[in-house]
């Protein structure tokens, strides 16, 4: 069975939990004492991932690290419909890869500000991280605004959400913990609501469910 090395409060681990839930993949969770135990820096864990970072998965004897890499693997392996990571269209493939890289930038800014403010990473420059996150949020809000203008629901074209949406969602939604308000990003806020209404959506501490959408309501 697939095993996820997980920390509940990690947005990067949450990406994997979301994907596993959306795809309904049977798995086990190995909870790592990230804080205060720093178990991800222990020799045993470093043998799994010399970067000393979460998440890591083990599946069929293979060990894989890095949230975005794991998302790609899970989609390629377990999404029989090929909707989360469609590989038949070079344009969309390129776009998804572009937004996966963008998600890494969100992690490097919004997540760093959150770690500083919430989990006491006092050695990082949280002010620079916040400024950086706002720059990225402006870009994503602008993108999503123009998506709405052409009735595109998700970050990449198509009727279905893709890995790009999963990769960007957690640290956008957790940004307030790093002192990054989303009041100036109305299109981003609407996209967060839409994302929460994807069937199979699960929450993590810091993120609540959305209410029922209009289409799901009874008469």
């Amino acid at each position, binding site marked *: 069975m697939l095993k996820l090395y997980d920390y509940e409060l990690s947005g990067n681990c949450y990406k994997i939990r979301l994907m596993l839930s959306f795809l309904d993949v049977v798995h086990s969770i190995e909870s790592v004492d990230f804080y205060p135990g720093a178990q991800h820096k222990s020799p045993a864990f470093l043998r799994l991932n010399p970067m000393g970072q979460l998440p890591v998965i083990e599946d069929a004897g293979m060990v894989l690290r890095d949230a975005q890499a794991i998302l790609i693997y899970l989609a390629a392996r377990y999404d029989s419909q090929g909707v989360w990571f469609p590989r038949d269209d070079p344009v969309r493939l390129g776009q998804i890869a572009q937004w996966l890289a963008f998600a890494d930038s969100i992690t490097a800014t919004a997540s760093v500000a959150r770690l500083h403010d919430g989990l006491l990473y006092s050695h990082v420059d949280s002010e620079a991280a916040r400024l950086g996150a706002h720059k990225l949020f402006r870009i994503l809000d*602008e993108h999503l605004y*123009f998506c709405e203008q052409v009735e595109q629901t998700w970050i990449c074209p198509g009727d279905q959400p893709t890995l790009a949406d999963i990769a960007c969602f957690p640290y956008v939604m957790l940004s307030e913990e790093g002192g990054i308000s989303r009041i*100036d990003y*109305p299109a981003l806020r609407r996209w967060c609501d839409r994302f929460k209404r994807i069937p199979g959506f699960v929450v993590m501490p810091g993120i*609540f469910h*959305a209410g029922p959408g209009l289409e799901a309501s009874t008469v």
Partner: protein
Amino acid sequence: MTPNLHSHWFPIASSTDLVPRHVYQAQLLGREFAVWRADDGYVNVWENRCLHRGVRLSIGINDGRELKCQYHGWRYANRTAGCTYIPAHPADAPARTICNNTYPAREAHGLIWTGEHASGSLPDLGCFADGIVLRPIPLNAPAEMVSESLEGYDSDVFFLVQPCDSNRSIIRGLAKPSKRDRLDLLRYHNFALQELRDHIEGQAASQDTPEPLVPIISQVAAELVDLPVLHTIGRQADFTVTITNKETVAEDVVRLRLESLTSVLPTFQPGAHIDLHLQNGLVRQYSLTNGPGETDHYTIGVKREIESRGGSATIHDHLRVGDNLAISAPRNNFPLRRDAVRTIFIAGGIGVTPLISMAQALNVQGLDFAFHYFVQSETRAAFSQELHAFNEATTFHINLSPHATSEELTHILSDPNPTYHIYVCGPIPMLDATRKIAKKQGWDDEQVHFEYFKNTNKINTEGSFEIDLARSACTFTVSEGQSILEVLRSNGINMPSSCETGACGTCRCGVIAGEIDHQDVYLTDSEKAKGNTIMTCVSRSRSDRLILDI
């Protein structure tokens, strides 16, 4: 910032920002707003603060009819912003004065407008009135600086700058309609304005940042601070409403739609009733049948009573669309708990009316319930459209004999469960039968909630006694033929009341000492046995003296 800016209209969102089931977060002159569109299209602009514990309502849930706070699940109604439910106290009807701060809202020219004290007409946009709403551009700079920088931008665009805070603004632009492709136009201005934004922000950063504006937090009503909340409304006609629709919804049953032409109707909760002051001077109580969030009108269902004393017959025969009526604000003496694992509604005839409102509330929240409707014939089944919308939750029991009704009730109540609650309303024999059967089957008194429409007990007004008002330190004598309520009123004490026949529960009062002669049908047997509450309109004292908690 000059204070008179608060009387101006400012755009705070594009119309397209308010998608269904979403709560938009806005800010104007330092104050934050939660802005949401209900499923009926109404745009609500509220202070972004639940008045319970200050949590932003923009992280709450818009269910299309009500906004639910994320912290404690308090529900606030569309339009009125009145609190309809406090889950921590499921048996209580929230005080009517628990109401969020709302602000004037207009939707025009593709924009949502508000202002803390805005009134009058919106600014005249001239040839831009039908303009294309550009993508709003938020920026970190004072509004005056932004406005100055926009001068000379492009005469085909009209700008409105939203002053969010002392150093935060939003550029909102309307472009003159042109032949140019809309998307192209949006992209062009978006790009140009973002360039300008970066320039303005650079300029703002080189100056001292002004202190953020501090909005004044308005106080909640004084009576909300001391608990429990006391009602202080007497039998008054608070509002004038107009009948905007009257239709026959079943044999001998009409439904009236009542709207206020002058003001927003007060918040109601499921189970609430209003007093209807008829033109012939009679006052009658009717339950509201509205679903949650239907706050632009009230609906009531009125059955023609065979022995009508002039109430229902007047409504059926003489009231017409366009007539004005005086009504009281809604009162809720039949509150709906929403913490039951399952709720069983038992309606008989026109007793369906309060239960219809309750069941709609549970249905919208996705809570489990069963609805049993006992009715003489299919043609007499009112509100069948609403009942059919509950699908398999609804069961009709048509034309059953008293015996068959008892058997059916025995079956419905055959499995007492401490996590269930029963609400029953209908003719007196059926109510009595339901209560008896429930008791026999092992249901607790506290689980069976009922509402009598009238008290058919013969009221005994014999004998006199004294009442001591514990908190007011007064003593009065209630003589033969007088009610406690009348004596209180004549001594200037404003005790609320409604039916004044011992059925509705409005005039209830705490009793500290003395033996009560209960003559009402509102209190449960166990409440009567406790002897600490009295219905002052009909009940009396067996002892020489009653000490009342007022």
